[in-house]
């Protein structure tokens, strides 16, 4: 189990440039597998361009109380990149004027940003329709100062999206750290007691499932059914939706794939499962990702690869939605992770179950 970030350990994959080299070499430069650009060109979908902006995703910092094995952010307690109040003020100006209907706060653990509560209070005044906080659940029990977070979330009608890799203790702790399962269960029970995740409740509680290993997620509908049955039967826990998310070969997950000699097989799995209809709805077509230091990216993964948007507007301080929407989306081979099977995004699959492929 990791205790330090790749960055702190000075690992090769803490370097974004090295990532991009790995993702372009070997099986892709040998033409054993087609590059992502070549693949989407087959169906006339290259270059990838944005549609209407719906989601503004803001990364409040890479600091986290956990060091998860699969984390594409390489987040952890030793990461010092935290959004400043100055950048937050710039974000608020954008939130007031954006056409996006969803504000999605992520990290790290976004709650660890010292100005988190102030920012939520200010942002909620803009009347954004869907206000998401990606909370890892254990943060609520990590320190006394976070104990009242569930009530804080309720006060602002925050839509909580939380990771839960499995309904069994062993699998969860292996991916996310010892004790994470029990703490997550306790946090979910606390949220349920406030009304979060209950049937017909307006307090939305969704869970995210990432596979804990070198394999793709199963069918979202069946997994949601299995998660719901198991969590209700074993712990009396309820939640709204399960989002299945494919692990992209970025950062710690790529490090794991290479170290466990699963990289080539995993890339084959992604390319084999390539689904051209998922390309139409990949999240970079309706999302802008803002990093802790205010730069703009096509998605959270491109942020980690330091691939800033291909636009004259590159920073939140110069934000212009119209100009941004005229950009071309930057892709590399990691993008196969979002187009495998029924597709993958921060909101789960991108193709409705009835239209999915086997």
């Amino acid at each position, binding site marked *: 189990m990791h205790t330090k970030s790749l960055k702190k350990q000075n690992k090769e994959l803490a370097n974004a440039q090295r990532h991009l080299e790995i993702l372009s070499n070997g099986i892709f430069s040998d033409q054993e597998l087609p590059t992502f650009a070549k693949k989407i060109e087959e169906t006339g979908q290259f270059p990838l361009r944005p549609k209407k902006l719906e989601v503004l995703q803001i990364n409040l910092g890479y600091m986290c109380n956990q060091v998860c094995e699969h984390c594409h952010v390489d987040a952890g307690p030793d990461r010092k990149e935290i959004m400043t109040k100055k950048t937050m003020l710039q974000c608020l100006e954008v939130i007031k004027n954006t056409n996006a209907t969803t504000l999605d706060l992520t990290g790290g653990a976004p709650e660890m940003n010292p100005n988190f509560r102030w920012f939520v209070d200010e942002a909620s005044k803009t009347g954004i329709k869907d206000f998401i906080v990606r909370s890892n659940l254990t943060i609520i029990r990590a320190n006394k100062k976070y104990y009242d977070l569930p009530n804080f979330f309720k006060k602002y009608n925050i839509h909580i999206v939380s990771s839960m890799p499995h309904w069994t203790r062993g699998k969860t702790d292996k991916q996310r750290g010892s004790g994470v399962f029990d703490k997550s269960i306790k946090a979910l029970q606390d949220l349920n007691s406030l009304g979060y995740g209950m049937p017909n409740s307006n307090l939305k509680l969704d869970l995210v499932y990432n596979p804990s290993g070198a394999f793709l997620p199963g069918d979202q509908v*069946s997994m949601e059914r299995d998660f719901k049955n198991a969590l209700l039967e074993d712990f009396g826990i309820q939640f709204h939706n399960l989002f299945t998310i494919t692990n992209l070969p970025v950062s710690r997950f790529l490090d794991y794939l290479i170290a466990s000699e699963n990289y080539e097989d995993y890339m084959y799995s992604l390319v084999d499962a390539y689904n051209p209809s998922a390309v139409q709805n990949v999240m970079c077509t309706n999302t802008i990702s803002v990093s802790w230091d205010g730069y703009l990216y096509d998605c959270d993964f491109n942020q980690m690869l330091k691939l800033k948007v291909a636009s004259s507007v590159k920073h939140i301080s110069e934000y212009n939605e119209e100009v941004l929407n005229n950009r071309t989306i930057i892709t590399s081979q990691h993008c196969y992770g979002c187009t495998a099977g029924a597709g993958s995004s921060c909101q789960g699959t991108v193709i409705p179950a009835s239209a999915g492929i086997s």
Partner: protein
Amino acid sequence: MGDNTYYDPKDLRKFGKITEWNEELGTKFFDYYGKVFEEGALTAREKSLIALAVSHVVKCPYCIDAYTKDGLQKGITKEEMMEAVHVGAAIESGATLVHGVQMMNKYDKLSM
């Protein structure tokens, strides 16, 4: 391939290529195969566990790799997987042992 072995895990990736040498039969097989594993009266999860058990009984290393991974993708636990393998093993050993009756019959017939 420089290694002197009959099985190479990478060959599983090439399974689809059997169609290149007989398109009609290959295509029919993969269509049939895909259809079999769709949700039906049995769930895709149940079918995956049956496939895993049969993979062990027919001792197909490609199939074991494929259906262990498939099980993980479907959220099947290792306890469920091992129980499925035991079901296969029980049937296989039962199939051996039930022939013991034939042996007993023959023995009795030949003995005075």
